[in-house]
């Protein structure tokens, strides 16, 4: 089985359109859709964030995302479709950095699989976030 059969994954420097993401996973046989969206926060560890800059190793990040999709399909075969989009480049406060959508016939698995996808993406996908503060910047090293 290829991830292409049920997964749509993307690394992009363009704004993430959640409605389009939903269109990628909507399936007539599926009633439950869980989405996680990670947005740029205005603070980090007590400091005021001006903006973020995301950088990816795009070929490998995409490969990881496809592996995560396959792993999810094998853990929760009920999952119908999954889409993961991560943005790169400069992001303002409130912009969407990552969005993950999972459809299943029943909702329990949608939540569980979506949670697993974001947790695994954050800990394994080669993507980095530079936090730009008023008085300097730093590559974040934790994936809280």
């Amino acid at each position, binding site marked *: 089985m290829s991830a292409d059969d049920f997964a749509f994954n993307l690394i992009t420097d363009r704004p993430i359109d959640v409605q389009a993401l939903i269109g990628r996973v909507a399936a007539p046989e599926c009633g439950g859709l869980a989405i996680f969206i990670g947005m740029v926060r205005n603070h980090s560890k007590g400091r005021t964030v001006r903006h973020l800059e995301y*950088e*990816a*190793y795009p070929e*490998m990040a995409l490969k990881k995302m496809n592996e995560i999709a396959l792993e999810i399909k094998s853990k929760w075969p009920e999952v119908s479709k999954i889409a993961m989009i991560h943005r790169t480049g400069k992001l303002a406060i409130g912009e969407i950095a990552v969005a993950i959508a999972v459809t299943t016939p029943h909702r329990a698995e949608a939540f569980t699989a979506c949670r697993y996808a974001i947790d695994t993406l*954050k800990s394994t*996908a080669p993507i980095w976030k530079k936090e730009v503060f008023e008085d300097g910047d730093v*590559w974040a*090293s934790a994936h809280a």
Partner: protein
Amino acid sequence: MVKVTVKFFAVGRDITGSDELMLELPEGTTAGEVLIQVKQRYPAFEKVAALLVAVNLDYADTATVLYDGDELAVIPPVSGG
């Protein structure tokens, strides 16, 4: 000799000042040996905790032997999402 591309990202790119470099290495060289060379050339890497290595788009053990045309990436701690 084998030719290997070494890629740098994020703090790694800041340290080396470049996206990638080409290395010519004796046959049998491992990913870990490249990492040691990189750290010798750019001592600032010593301050980066938990550096990982990927070979041809997969995380790799430091014992992984490199072949001609391989792409090795130095992976600082990830922070996506």
